[in-house]
Each structure stands twice: as structure tokens, then as C-alpha cells.
């Protein structure tokens, strides 16, 4: 079943870009297409190179970390094991990475041996970010990080995302239903409708845009 009908996105290095759209517009599929979780036609260029179509493992090893819908947490494993898995494709010592993770998520230190599935929603989302960070990716793909979280947690998550972008130089492509916060944090935005990009540009412009305000910002 074809979900996307010609999606063209460009994300500059070091920026945060967001993809907005209603349910079923194809936002999740877009991310899956990049990480090779689903089959795609078309070209994905990363850092000048064309990505092969063969499997998510290859994409992960090239420095793209995808936090999927539902967070992809290994609920049956411990917090620590989840982080170790994040570092799976890295060579050499990951101790320093782990210490950096703790600076963003200090609560993890006390909960290392807790089963990841018993964490709260907000904690699982943070664990997912931490796991992705352990991959030391160049590009972070985030699928609806705000899903199911209380507003105060959403603000916190996006604060961390912005910090990761600014401090670590992580390029982020975040797909979001919560257009408010996404447009605040991102520099560039794309709007997807029925599998097509209908609008794109700097977020400030889109925030002021008539139809965006009506459909996605509610005023």
C-alpha cells in the first residue's frame, strides 16, 4: 500500500526540522522510509551519499538514529541494557557517552536495573532519547515524542531535544502532531497532507501562515 506520493524534504546539518500533519498524512511513514523500515522508491541522500535500501541496520550504522512510534523501548530489558543496545554499533569504549547521557538524564543512574517497561511514559521517552544518543548519531529521527505525555513533560522533552541539538550538534528531524511546540523548537517545518508536502519553509513563516494557524495551531 502506497502511503507517500512524492515527498521531498531537505534538512540542513545542525538544524531541527519538523514534519507536521494530521493522522494518516504519512509522517511516520516518511521517517520509516528514511530508516529503511519500510520499502521505498526514491533517493535518500545523507551527507552527500545516497543511502542503500537494504535494511534498517545499515542506516543505523551510518549514523542515523530512529526513535520510532511507540519509542521502541525493550520493555523486558533493564534501563542499562537498553542503553547498551543503543551503543551496539559503536566501537570502543562508551563510558564517556554514558556519562554524557547522565548529564541530560540524571535520574537514569539510580534506575539502571529497573525493567524498562515499568517506567512511566515520560521516562520511557527520555530513555528512548538517551538510547538514541548512545548511538552518537549525526541525524536523529523522532516520531511524535509528545505522544501520550502531559504538557509539562512535553516541554521538558523538547527542551532536551533542543539542548542535544545545540550542545551535541545533532541534526534532528522530528515528526509531530503538537504543532505548537514543534514550530517553536524547530527552524524549518514541512506540512504533509495525504502523503504529499503541501507547505515548507522557516517555522516562523509557517507559524504566521493562515491555513497552518487554522488547521494545526487552532486559531
Amino acid at each position: 500500500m502506497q502511503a507517500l506520493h512524492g515527498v521531498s524534504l531537505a534538512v540542513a546539518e545542525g538544524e531541527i526540522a519538523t514534519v507536521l500533519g494530521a493522522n494518516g498524512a504519512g509522517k511516520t511513514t516518511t521517517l520509516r522510509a528514511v530508516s529503511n523500515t519500510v520499502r521505498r522508491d526514491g533517493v535518500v541522500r545523507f551527507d552527500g551519499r545516497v543511502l542503500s535500501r537494504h535494511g534498517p541496520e545499515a542506516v543505523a550504522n551510518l549514523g542515523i538514529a530512529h526513535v520510532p512510534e511507540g519509542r521502541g523501548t525493550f520493555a523486558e530489558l533493564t534501563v542499562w541494557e537498553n542503553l547498551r543496545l543503543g551503543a551496539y554499533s559503536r566501537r570502543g569504549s562508551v563510558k564517556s557517552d554514558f556519562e554524557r547521557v547522565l548529564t541530560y538524564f540524571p535520574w537514569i543512574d539510580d534506575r539502571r536495573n529497573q525493567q524498562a517497561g515499568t517506567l512511566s511514559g515520560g521516562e520511557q521517552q527520555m530513555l528512548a532519547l538517551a538510547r538514541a544518543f548512545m548511538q552518537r548519531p549525526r541525524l536523529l529521527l523522532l516520531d511524535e515524542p509528545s505522544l501520550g505525555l502531559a504538557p509539562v513533560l512535553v516541554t521538558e522533552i523538547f527542551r532536551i531535544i533542543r539542548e542535544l541539538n545545540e550542545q551535541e550538534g545533532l541534526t534532528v528531524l522530528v515528526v509531530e502532531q503538537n504543532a505548537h511546540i514543534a514550530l517553536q523548537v524547530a527552524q524549518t517545518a514541512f506540512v504533509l497532507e495525504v502523503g504529499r508536502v503541501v507547505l515548507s519553509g522557516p517555522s516562523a513563516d509557517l507559524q504566521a501562515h493562515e491555513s497552518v494557524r487554522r488547521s494545526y495551531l487552532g486559531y
Partner: protein
Amino acid sequence: MEIARRIRIRERRTRNIGGGVSVPVVLFLVAAAIFLVVGSLVSPIFAQQTVAGLAQGAIFASLALSLVLIYRATEVINFAQGEMAMATTYFAYQLTLWHLSYWAAFFLTLLMAFVFGAVVQVALIRPVQHSVIAVVIITVGLFVLIDGLVTWKWGADLKFMPAPFGNQVYHVGSVAFSRQDLGTLLVTILSVLLLWVLFKFTKLGLAMRAAALRPASAALVGVRVNRMLAIGWGLAAVLGAVAGLMTEPTVFLQPTMMQAVLLYAFAAAVLGGLESPAGAVIGGLALGVFLNLIGQYVGFATSELRLPIAFAVLLVVLLVKPHGLFGRKQVRRV
């Protein structure tokens, strides 16, 4: 509405039990262990049957562990596990015919078993891994194929390998323990321990667990899921080889040597909970001891009924705990 509510309640109840181990089960097992120790101290026959039962159970446990490994990774029961174990034992036999020492043959066989298991997964299972029934049927076909090939190459008559642990019998008081039984127990416990270390402490083990639990998420962190599955089958074949090599001293080498063991291993694996390696081991040991003691002390339980009794126990346990002693309803997520 009603059903949605019932599903949610069931989910909540299963979520907070860590590792599928529940207190009543642990208490029951501790009580059983105490019973065995006390009985052994009181009666030498009891002790003998218990130790022999443990050794038999260790073999069940080894093969059961193979089944669990494969089930966890691919949600399939490998009906050919016993025959694969048998074939690798014949391979060891051939090596001894070529003048290798027993233990050299043993370890070389383990290596070869690993390759065998991995090749089977890649060549026969991977192409149809989306269809559970197709995979099951293929393992059935493999069962028959291996049986035919082995009988063709080596014949159906009994063959004998050198005894790995010698034939000595130790005496503690009036209880006689065979060196073979003790050796079997040791080898099995060792292999289980090594496996545990692999899964708990190594990167590879973690990747294998991740690939079995959530293949899609594992792929996203760079785990080559297919490769992990092949390795899983390889390790399962190694465990099977250990089971086969430890069975040979008692029933000797014949094409049908592992068929009954496979059935007991099924019972043990399900008893322990198909997704729990610890369960497979405890299930196997418990089954071995139980069958021996029942056979000794209950007159009605003659040898023809050993197998039905094993399965009757299994069915009773399943009625009380539908997912085995250590199992829990796993919601397979992607």
C-alpha cells in the same frame, strides 16, 4: 466495552511480575528441593533415584534449552531438534573412528553442530520465516530426512562410543552414584552456565535477546537480526549435541536414540515456560527426578506409562499455569 476492559485488566496484572517468576512457584520449588534432600538422607534408594533422575533430567534440560532458544527467537518449535542432536552425535562417533580422542571429537562436534544449526536456519528456515506452519512442516521434513540419511550412512544397528567418564561407581554410605551420571550433570550445568554468561554479560548475548524480543527495534540500533537468528539456531544445535553426547552412554548410538528424549524435552520446555531458559532447565531436572521417583514408588507407573505420565504432569501444570511455571503471556511487539 466489556472485553476492552477485561483485556486492560489482564495486561496490568501481567506487567508487574518481574521475569515471570511468581512467589507460589518459587515456594513450591523450594519445598520440592527440601523434600528431595530429606528423602535422600533418609533412604539410599531415594538418593540414588534422585541423582539418576537429575542426570536424566539434565539431558532433558539440555535439549529443552535448545527448544526454548529457538522458540524465543523465532516462535517456532523445531521438531528436528532431537534428530539434529542425534546426527551430530553420529558425527562425533565418526571422528572417533578416525582415531580422534573422545574429548577432541566432543569439542570438534560442538563446533560442527554450531555450523550445522546456522546453515539450517539460513537455508531452510529463513526463506519461509514469515509462515509459522511452513517452518514447522520443514522441521518435520528435516526430521525424516536426517533419520533417513543417518540410517543410510551408518546403518540402524547399535554402535558404541568410548565412555566419556568411565564406568566407575562411587559409594557414599550405601548409595551408589555412577561417574557417568555425575559427569552428565556437570557438563550440562556447565553449558547452561556458559549460556547464561553469554546472554547476560556479553554484547552478542544482549543483541540476541533484543533480536528475539523486538526485531524491528533491534534493527534500528544496528543489530543484524537475521544473523542473530542464525547464531541462535547454531547455539541451539550445540546444546542439542551436548544432549546427544550425554545420552549416548546410556542408550548407545542408534538412529532412534533421541526420539523419546525429544518428547520429554518438549514436556520439560513447556513445563518451564517456553520462553524461559531457566524454566527449561528446572523443568527438565524436575521431570527427570519426578519420573524416576514415580517409577520407583508407584507400582502402576510402569515403563509404558512414563511418557503419558510426563505429559499428564505437563497438562496438569498447564491447566493451572497456562504458560508454564515461569512463563508469562508475552505480547509480541514490533
